């Protein structure tokens, strides 16, 4: 049951990314390019996505997930260097090519060789991240 739900959720996520235009790197780079021909689409996508999620978070109060277990707790609110360094690295890569993890996966069937290389590089980055994280923890 969990897996069927996860498959449907992944499918919806992919459809949403495709419909919203977020698999188009030019739209994403257009949003980040405030000194160029600025494209506000991404703000509408974020706004549209945050509204149902904000309602869902409210609904979790005093309840448990439909398939059992516990809802995720509010994480430690501290903003450490891993969060800042990681976010800046991610943002730089996102700007350079215009793909983030969700759209990179959703567009793999039609993104051509470039999309495929990006996904491989991203997975390689995820693979080498844990030792880098440990190094940052020790500093």
């Amino acid at each position, binding site marked *: 049951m969990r897996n069927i739900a996860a498959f449907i959720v992944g499918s919806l996520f992919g459809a949403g990314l495709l419909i919203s235009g977020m698999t188009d790197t030019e739209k994403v780079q257009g949003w980040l390019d405030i000194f160029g021909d600025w494209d506000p689409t991404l703000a509408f996508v974020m706004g549209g996505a945050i509204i149902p999620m904000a309602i869902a978070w409210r609904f979790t109060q005093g309840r448990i997930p439909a398939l059992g277990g516990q809802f995720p707790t509010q994480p430690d609110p501290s903003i450490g260097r891993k969060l800042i360094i990681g976010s800046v690295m991610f943002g730089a890569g996102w700007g350079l090519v215009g793909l983030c993890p969700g759209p990179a996966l959703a567009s793999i069937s039609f993104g051509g060789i470039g999309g495929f290389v990006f996904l491989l590089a991203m997975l390689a*980055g995820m693979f*080498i991240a844990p030792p880098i994280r440990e190094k940052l923890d020790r500093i």
Partner: protein
Amino acid sequence: MNQDWLMGLIGGGIIGTAAAIFLLINGKVMGASGLTGGLVDRSGIDTWKERVSWLAGLIIFPAILTVIYGIKPTNITTNIPLIIVAGLLVGVGTRLANGCTSGHGVCGISRLSLRGIASTVFYIGAGGVTMIIFKHILGII
């Protein structure tokens, strides 16, 4: 072109609905980098079936949609070295930050998580600065 914002809003609503279902049914945060990264570094191997099912939907359903409705070009650059650098930065960065646009952006901001908001400010800021340097100053992208 004029309808882009509307398609963005509708598509965004579908993305948020997907994340809401994952939260309310499965009890999990739908973050693309976390769900994928947990498989890559094996930290989330206990829940691999759920993760692989989610990935299968995310990859297969858009493929079906493009077969039916035609391909929406990704317009990705042809500069392969640039793609490799960007992919590595996104992979390492999202795992260090513990989230990306879906996890920190959609799921974090919607619960007013300080980390989610901070991360989003930093990655959008870094993306904007990257555009200024690499597009307007260096002319690489």
